[in-house]
C-alpha cells in the first residue's frame, strides 16, 4: 500500500519519576499511523495510551525514542509549534471566551488575519452545526454542545493530525452513539488523520480503520477491527475485545486435543505443545450429545438478553464455555439448567494464542 505515514512513534519509552521510584508508562512502543486514517488506541486505563497521545501532542517528552510527523522528527518540538491539535477529555474550553472566540483561538495565536479567523470560525461553526451558539459562553452549553465546540476548535487550524483523548466518555449513551457517527462524518469530510484514544472496545470496533491495542505500557496488537477481533494474538487482546471462551489444549498431528480429551480442528503446529485456544461465544453451536464429534457438556446457567440467550456450560473437565444463541421466535429454546448437551465449534473459528 502506497499510503503515506502521518505519525510514527519509534521505540518510545516514557518514565515518570526517577531512580527506583520511576514508573514506566510506555515501554518501547513503535507505531505507524497512516495519512487520512481513523486510528484508535485502545486499552484499559493506565495502559499508556493517553501518554502516547501526549507525546504526539508535545505535552510530554519521551525518556527515549522518537516521534515523527510526516517524516520529520518532532520529538522535542513544543506543542505550539506542532501542526497537531487535541480534543481534550474535559474539553478544556476557555470559560472566559465565547464559543466563536474559542474556535478562533488557534488561528488568532498563529497570527492569521482577522478576516480569515472570522471566515474559518463561521465555517467551523457550520461544520459542527453550532451557528446559533456563537456568542454563548461554554458554561451555557450542554455536554454534547461543548464537545462539538471542542472539535471545531481543534479542527479550525486545519491540523495534519487530530488527537482525541476519550472525547466521548463524559456523554450519555444516546449522545455517545450520535457523536460516534458525527466524528466519523467529520473525519471523512475533512480527510484529516484522527488518532482516537478510548477504553471502549465497541467504540473502537465501529469507528476505526485500524486499532492499536495497548496494555501495561506496551503495544499488544495493531490491525483492522476485523483482524483484531477474529485473530487476536494473545490472551489479553482476545479477552479485552469482545467476550470469548478460553480452553487449554495440546497440539497433535491432526488437530488439537482439549484438556477434557476431545479432538477439535484448529491451526496446526508442533505436536505435543500445550496451548490456549479461544472461541467466540457466537461461534459455539449446540448439538445433540449423541452426535459424532460433539463435545459433551452440561448447562449451568441460562442468561436471557432479549435478542439472544447466553448459555453457560461446563465441560467434563470443569472448563467453562459460553455459547451465544439466537433467541427463537417462540421464546422457548428447549434448554434447561442441568441438561446434558453437545458442543461444536464453527469451522475456522478456533484460534491458538501465543502466550
Amino acid at each position, binding site marked *: 500500500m502506497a499510503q503515506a505515514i502521518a505519525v510514527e512513534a519509534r521505540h518510545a519509552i516514557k518514565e515518570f519519576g526517577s531512580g527506583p521510584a520511576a514508573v514506566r508508562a510506555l515501554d518501547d512502543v513503535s507505531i505507524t499511523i497512516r495519512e487520512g486514517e481513523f486510528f484508535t488506541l485502545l486499552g484499559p486505563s493506565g495502559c499508556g495510551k493517553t501518554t502516547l497521545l501526549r507525546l504526539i501532542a508535545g505535552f510530554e517528552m519521551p525518556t527515549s525514542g522518537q516521534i515523527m510527523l510526516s517524516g520529520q522528527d518532532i520529538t522535542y518540538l513544543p506543542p505550539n509549534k506542532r501542526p497537531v491539535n*487535541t480534543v481534550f477529555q474535559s474539553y478544556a474550553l476557555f470559560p*472566559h471566551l465565547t464559543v466563536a472566540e474559542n474556535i478562533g483561538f488557534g488561528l488568532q495565536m498563529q497570527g492569521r488575519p482577522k478576516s480569515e479567523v472570522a471566515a474559518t470560525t463561521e465555517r467551523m461553526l457550520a461544520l459542527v452545526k453550532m451557528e446559533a451558539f456563537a456568542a454563548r459562553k461554554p458554561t451555557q452549553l450542554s455536554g454534547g454542545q461543548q464537545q462539538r465546540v471542542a472539535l471545531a476548535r481543534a479542527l479550525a487550524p486545519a491540523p495534519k493530525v487530530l488527537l482525541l483523548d476519550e472525547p466521548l466518555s463524559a456523554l450519555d449513551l444516546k449522545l455517545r452513539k450520535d457523536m460516534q457517527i458525527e466524528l466519523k462524518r467529520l473525519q471523512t469530510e475533512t480527510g484529516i488523520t484522527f488518532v482516537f484514544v478510548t477504553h471502549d472496545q465497541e467504540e473502537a470496533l465501529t469507528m476505526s480503520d485500524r486499532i492499536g491495542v495497548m496494555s501495561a505500557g506496551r503495544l499488544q496488537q495493531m490491525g483492522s477491527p476485523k483482524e483484531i477481533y477474529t485473530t487476536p494474538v494473545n490472551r489479553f487482546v482476545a479477552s479485552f475485545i469482545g467476550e470469548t471462551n478460553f480452553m487449554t489444549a495440546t497440539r497433535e498431528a491432526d488437530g488439537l486435543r482439549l484438556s477434557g480429551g476431545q479432538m477439535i480442528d484448529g491451526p496446526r503446529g508442533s505436536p505435543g505443545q500445550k496451548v490456549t485456544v479461544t472461541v467466540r461465544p457466537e461461534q459455539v453451536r449446540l448439538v445433540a450429545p449423541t452426535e459424532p464429534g460433539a463435545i459433551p457438556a452440561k448447562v449451568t446457567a441460562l442468561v436471557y438478553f432479549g435478542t439472544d440467550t447466553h448459555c453457560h456450560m461446563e465441560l467434563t473437565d470443569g472448563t467453562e464455555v459460553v455459547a451465544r444463541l439466537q433467541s427463537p421466535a417462540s421464546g422457548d429454546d428447549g434448554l434447561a439448567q442441568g441438561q446434558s448437551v453437545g458442543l461444536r465449534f464453527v469451522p475456522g473459528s478456533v484460534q491458538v494464542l501465543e502466550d
Partner: protein
Amino acid sequence: MKQFSVTAMPGFAFIAILGFVLLYVPILTLVTYSFNGAATMTSWGGFSWRWYGAAWANVDVQSATIRSLVIASWATLISVVLATPVALATTRTAAFKGQSFIYLYTNQTLVVPEIVPAVALLIFFAALKTWTGYQGLAYLIAAHTMWCIPLAYLPIRARLEGMDLSLETAAADLYATRWQTLRHVTLPLLMPGILAGAMLCFITSLDTVVITEFVKSAGQETLATYMLGQFRRGITAEINAISTVLLMLTIVLLFAFFFLTRKRAA
C-alpha cells in the same frame, strides 16, 4: 414530632446564635454612640451628626486618611505585582528544587506576630533614616508591602491551583506561545484571585497599626495610628464616628467584592 436532623448537635445552635449576638452588640453599641449628641461620653444627648462633622472638618483626620489611602494603594500594587509571578512559579509545575523553600520564604511573615517585624524595621529604618537623611513615606510603603506579600500570594496561588491545567495545555496545543497563554488564558482566569489578594492587602494595610506606629517618621500619622493616639487621650466620640465610616466602607467593599466575583463566575 420534630424530624430527625442528621446535622443538628445539642446546644450548638444556641451557642452559635449567642456568638453572633456577642459579635454584633459591641459593633452596634459603637455605631450608636457615634450618633451621641452629648459632649461627654457619659450620657446620651440625643441623635446627632456632630461627631461626623467634627471628624470631617478635622485637618489631621483628612491628612491621615489621605496618607492611609496612598500607602495602602502602593502597598497593594507592589504586593500583587511581586506575588503574582511567585504564585505562577510555584503552582502547576513539575516539582523543582527549592519549590517549598520559595513557598515558605514568601510566607515567612505570616508566622510571626506583627510586633516582631515592627521592631526589626524600626531598627533597620532608624539606621537608614540617619544614613540617607530621607524621611518620606517610602519606608511605610515598603513595610506594608513586606507585610502584605503573603496575603496577596495565597489567594492568587489558591486560584491557580483550582484552575484546570488542561486549559493552558489547550492553549499551547492551539499555537499559543508561553506569553500568549499567560496573556489570553491564565491572567484573565486569574483575575478573581488577584482581586481577592488585592482586597486583602488593601484592607490589611489600612488596619496595620503596630508596624506603622514603629516605622513612621514624625508627622506621618495614618488613620489607624491617629485613632489609637486620640483614644489614648480619651477622645473617643470622634473615633466612634470614624470607626463607623470605616465599618461601612468595609461592608461596601465586601458587597462589591461578592458582586464582582459572582458576575465573573457566571
